């Protein structure tokens, strides 16, 4: 069941009778689902029975499984096969005897009879070393089950419904490739290749024909010279149809396959379950299957005979704990992903146009058994529409029964922010879910969550294709992507392919010309083919055929820093000038140059070049400003000279062609954030203060002092002799807090999870320049703020008291309180009175008590000359929700006494 996140899929299973279990029932999602499979197969049940009969060895151990092996439950929890282990897990999670009844309820009639013995047999199995072995052994059986159809299941509440078995519908690899399961994790590409090669040799002739077939048919009418009658574009006609048709980029192609194969586990595995720390299934499966029994054996394994086969290994059950601990280590290889998915879940293929990015992603996806769902720039890609589309396609099956692979083509346009946002949202959801999953010890419970907490895993591969990795739209997606850069095929292979095509199309083109075409088009195969097809008649090397090259700004930047030894300075200058003019993105190019020049190699004397370039940068700044100046007219065109100046000053032979351009994006983000905080503070300040300060002076003049003002040293406040001296300090701090309506919030430190106090809005990162200072400030606040909070409370009560004192006369209240206390005694006995009345009276009483206490205090205060506050306060907090506490009658009186 690949769709863990699908509520609809899980729903019938989750409604299984486990709902009736009193406690601990929440941890049964997996068991619930797999128990139904148990129910569907009488074959399984018989196995279990026979098992027990065959297995006298283990019966003594069943008596106290929990105490002897406490960690069993965890291990089994993740048992994927799920067929026999089902009821065992139930037993494991809770008390054996308690739950047996429930298990029987959960299953259909035949199970009912055997459920108890079955449970026992499962316990035996847990203790075997070969838990993971079970997994393999039982797999074929689960395939068999498929043949059993529509099973009636009766629920304990009397409802019956039909369970339908899903058919395993895909083949792991198309194109004559048969990959066995074992190979899906570590892909031996060389084996694959040799396999393919032999196949290809075998079918050599037919293959060759198929590649040329369509051509031959179409070539018949126009048999001489250039084939003008061709109905299809050559680009379409000669598009590679399968993996072996590709030329060049061997390594990148393999990388893509490898990435795709990493998804196999989650996509194609029938009963996959998440990996957790406690489950050692996967490595152990490999270990045990390689050590004890051959793979082929496990594959042909038939269940009825399986039990005896496994038994010898069972006897080494004592070793299990050690093995478990040792095998949990290699698990880190599978990093933290619970499904063994690739670490980066989006594949970002980038490269110049015409290199076959789209083609290869389609072919590899098909080859790996996916149905390609393409979203390209022609589709609506904004907002909710694309969100629906993506989420639907990622979580549903196609009619062909193949899983979907999302191929998002041309994602680097300016209009793609919406689309990229959708993808990053999906990734963020996935990340969050994984984190929650790892934190939650109980996986079954986790998967049962619904609504907001519903696990949102990404379970299908997403491929994104772009030309420009540095497009602003991809800024956020980039760090989360597996990036694959496409490079041109080598000249030779490209020319060979063109020759082949020319030959097939009966177009006599000398290889010299072909070479020219290849260089002209900058190794763009697509445009090579177009050129051959349509410009084939006049191959005279004129520049008109030259593809209008628009290099991306970042490649122009790297070219600017390169000195070309082959051509003269003037030539290069001319070329670069043309490049920059065509691109037109002067500001970006210049900023890229500015960001990189400090890391470049160049000859210089006493920093003359950086100081010189600063003048040029000023020039370009002025020029680019004219774009927005309506009066003077746009002369931003001239700013490109600055880019050429960068070339003049900083280009060197030793500079590399693929440089990394630093981005100041995060600074802008941070500035924006900080500015928002300043604005918030400014807007929160009272009018009087606001007229006095400027927005700009807050971060420079006022905020740097604020942290100090807010955190006076109050440690001596409670010492009497200092009290007088320190009295003004909390007041000043509170005033400062009020000036910007700062709130004091208790939060958790992100690193250490210590409790710290922050202000809201938290301006500390704005004021302090390194993390140590920020931390120190937080610590100071943590020391001070609780005192301030109590002080604020004290002031508030003082104020309230003031008002009360003014209103109520003391004599009458004294009398009243006397009455009330009398009444109170009566009330405690009198249960007949409504609780509301009692509550009301109680509050009145407390108010009276407060009055009394206050009066008393005032007297003492006057006597001592200072105020001492020991308020008696009662809060009644009603927490709505579930509690399994014992219910008991509590009278209001009990609470108040």
């Amino acid at each position: 069941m690949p769709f863990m996140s699908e509520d609809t899929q899980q729903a019938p299973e989750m409604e299984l009778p486990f709902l009736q279990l009193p406690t601990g029932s929440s941890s049964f999602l997996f068991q619930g689902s797999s128990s139904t499979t148990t129910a569907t197969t009488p074959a399984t049940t018989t196995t279990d029975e026979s098992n027990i009969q065959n297995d006298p060895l283990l019966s003594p151990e069943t008596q106290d499984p929990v105490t002897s092996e406490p960690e069993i439950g965890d291990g089994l929890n993740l048992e994927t096969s799920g067929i026999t282990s089902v009821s065992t897990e139930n037993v494991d999670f809770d008390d054996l005897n308690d739950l047996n009844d429930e298990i029987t309820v959960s299953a259909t009639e035949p199970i009912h009879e055997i459920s108890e013995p079955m449970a026992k047999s499962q316990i035996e199995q847990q203790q075997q070393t070969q838990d993971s072995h079970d997994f393999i052994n039982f797999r074929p059986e689960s395939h068999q089950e498929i043949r059993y159809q529509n099973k009636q299941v009766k629920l304990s509440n009397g409802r019956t419904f039909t369970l339908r078995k899903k058919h395993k519908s895909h083949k792991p690899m198309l194109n004559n490739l048969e990959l066995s399961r074992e190979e899906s994790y570590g892909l031996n590409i060389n084996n694959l290749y040799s396999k393919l090669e032999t196949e290809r040799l075998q079918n050599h002739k037919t293959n060759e024909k198929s590649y040329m077939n369509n051509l031959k048919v179409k070539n018949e009418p126009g048999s001489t010279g250039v084939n003008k009658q061709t109905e299809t574009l050559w680009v379409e006609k000669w598009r590679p149809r399968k993996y072996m048709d590709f030329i060049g980029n061997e390594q990148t192609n393999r990388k893509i396959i490898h990435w795709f194969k990493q998804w196999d586990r989650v996509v194609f595995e029938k009963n996959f379950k998440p990996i957790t720390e406690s489950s050692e299934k996967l490595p152990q499966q490999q270990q045990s299957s390689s050590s004890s029994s051959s793979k082929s054996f496990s594959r042909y394994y038939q269940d009825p005979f399986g039990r005896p086969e496994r038994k010898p290994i069972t006897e080494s059950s004592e070793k299990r704990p050690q093995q478990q601990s040792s095998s949990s280590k290699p698990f880190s290889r599978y990093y933290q992903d619970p499904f063994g998915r690739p670490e980066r879940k989006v594949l970002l293929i980038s490269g110049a146009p015409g290199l076959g990015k789209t083609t290869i992603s389609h072919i590899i996806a098909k080859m790996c058994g996916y149905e390609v769902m393409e979203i390209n720039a022609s589709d609506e890609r904004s907002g909710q529409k694309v969100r629906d589309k993506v989420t639907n396609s990622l979580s549903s099956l196609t009619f062909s029964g193949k899983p979907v692979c999302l191929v998002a083509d041309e994602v680097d346009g300016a209009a793609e922010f919406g689309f990229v946002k959708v993808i990053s949202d999906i990734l963020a959801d996935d990340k969050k879910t994984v984190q929650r999953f790892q934190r939650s010890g109980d996986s079954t419970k986790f998967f049962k969550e619904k609504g907001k907490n519903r696990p949102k895993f990404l379970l299908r591969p997403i491929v994104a294709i772009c030309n420009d990795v540095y497009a602003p739209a991809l800024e956020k997606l980039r760090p989360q992507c597996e990036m694959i850069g496409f490079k041109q095929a080598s000249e030779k292979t490209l020319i060979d392919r063109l020759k082949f095509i020319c030959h097939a199309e009966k177009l006599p083109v000398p290889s010299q010309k072909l070479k020219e075409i290849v260089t002209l088009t900058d190794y763009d195969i697509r445009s090579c083919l177009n050129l051959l097809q349509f410009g084939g008649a006049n191959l005279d090397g004129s520049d008109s055929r030259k593809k209008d090259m628009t290099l991306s700004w970042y490649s122009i930047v790297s070219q600017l820093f390169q000195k070309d030894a082959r051509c003269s300075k003037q030539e290069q200058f001319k070329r670069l000038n043309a490049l920059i003019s065509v691109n037109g993105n002067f500001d970006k190019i210049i900023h890229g140059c500015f960001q990189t020049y400090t890391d470049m190699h160049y000859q210089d004397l006493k920093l003359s070049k950086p100081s010189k370039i600063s003048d040029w940068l000023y020039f370009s700044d002025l020029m680019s400003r004219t774009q927005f100046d309506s009066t003077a007219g746009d002369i931003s065109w001239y700013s490109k000279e600055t880019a050429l100046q960068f070339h003049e000053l900083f280009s060197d032979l030793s500079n590399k062609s693929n440089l990394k351009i630093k981005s100041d994006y995060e600074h802008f983000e941070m500035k924006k954030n900080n500015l928002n905080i300043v604005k918030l503070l400014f807007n929160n300040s009272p009018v009087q203060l606001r007229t006095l300060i400027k927005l700009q002076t807050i971060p420079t003049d006022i905020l740097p002092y604020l942290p100090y003002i807010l955190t006076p040293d109050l440690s001596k406040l409670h010492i009497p002799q200092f009290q007088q001296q320190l009295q003004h300090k909390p007041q000043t701090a509170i005033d400062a807090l009020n000036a910007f309506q700062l709130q004091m919030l208790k939060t958790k430190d992100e690193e250490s999870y210590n409790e710290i106090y922050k202000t809201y809005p938290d301006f500390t990162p704005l004021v302090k320049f390194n993390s140590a200072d920020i931390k120190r400030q937080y610590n100071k606040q943590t020391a001070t703020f609780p005192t301030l909070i109590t002080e604020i409370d004290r002031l508030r009560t003082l104020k309230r008291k003031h008002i009360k004192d003014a209103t109520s006369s003391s004599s009458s209240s004294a009398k009243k309180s006397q009455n009330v206390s009398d009444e109170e005694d009566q009330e405690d006995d009198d249960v007949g009175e409504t609780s509301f009345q009692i509550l009301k009276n109680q509050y009145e009483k407390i108010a009276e008590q407060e009055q009394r206490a206050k009066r008393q205090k005032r007297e003492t205060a006057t006597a001592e000359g200072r105020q001492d506050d020991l308020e008696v306060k009662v809060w009644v907090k009603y927490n709505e929700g579930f509690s399994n506490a014992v219910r008991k009658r509590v009278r209001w009186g009990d609470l108040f006494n």
Partner: protein
Amino acid sequence: MSLWIDKYRPQTLNSLNYHPDVSSRLKSLASSPDFPHLLIYGPSGSGKKTRVLAILTELYGHGVNKMKIDVRQFTTSSNKKLEFNIISSAYHIEITPSDLGNNDRVVIQDLLKEIASTEQVDFSTGKHRFKIVVINEADSLSRDAQAALRRTMEKYSRNVRLILISNTTSNIIPPIKSRVLLIRIAAPQVEDIVQVLTSLDRKLNLVNLTSDDEQKLQLFRTIAVTSERNLRRAVLLFETLAIQNDTLDASTKMVQLDWELVIAKLASDILRERNVSRIGQCRTVMYELLSHCIPAKIILKTLAFDLVRLVNLQTKAQIVAIAAVFDERLSLGSKVIYHLEGFVAKAMVAIEENQ
């Protein structure tokens, strides 16, 4: 319930502590039957706003202190909706058009005209029939906005008077300058600040302040110098010191501003080593400062003065000259990081040459 700078601000012209000549002049202006447009300029923290509020109080009485904040919406020519905060009382409004950046023209055109074309009806309290519009940060008004302002000032002068507040007059176009009365508020002298702090101390009765008068004066002087004769900073610093220390005397350690420390370190780094990688490091620090909302001009100024303090006489002059050039570039250009780095590079060259 606010900071001391707000709490102990003088409310009337009479209670102003320094610049008595300016105060008396303003007073005579306010008592005369008519009132001119004003352009009040001076460095940050010299008390411009305090004086403006005092004038308003002088003109209209304490009613002007009942201020409220309104949010107004404007639509630009490109149909963009803008929100704009206005502080207003019954007698005046206060706007900061530069909040809207390039769209400040809209505010001047729409809002000012709207106010200017309506007349004050309530004659009961004030003796003047005009309203006052206070325009903050007039020096960052765009050309268009200033041009929009000049005719409004004359046309509606019956109903409205403007008080422009700015740091310098250099960005203000001559036609406006000729229509206003220029009043310069200089930064207070150290002794002025000492006087202000002394009177503040008298009001506060701080227990942890030393009772020795000599020590007190010494402390106040240090505060005035540390805060660079910026009264706002001086009072804030005083508040900070008062709350952070158990005893305040001449030896009390001043609180240094974090961003100033960062710039000081930058200056000493530049002096220690000058090469391209240092420029790269400086850029990182510049970015850091900018992202902490420190204006580029202030970074440039502080850095220049820090450098001047550290180098020999000949270089001093050069650095000041370079700083002046780049200060202009900062005002004319828009990509501040280029110019900050340019200053660093040129300063490095200057230091290198004079060694």
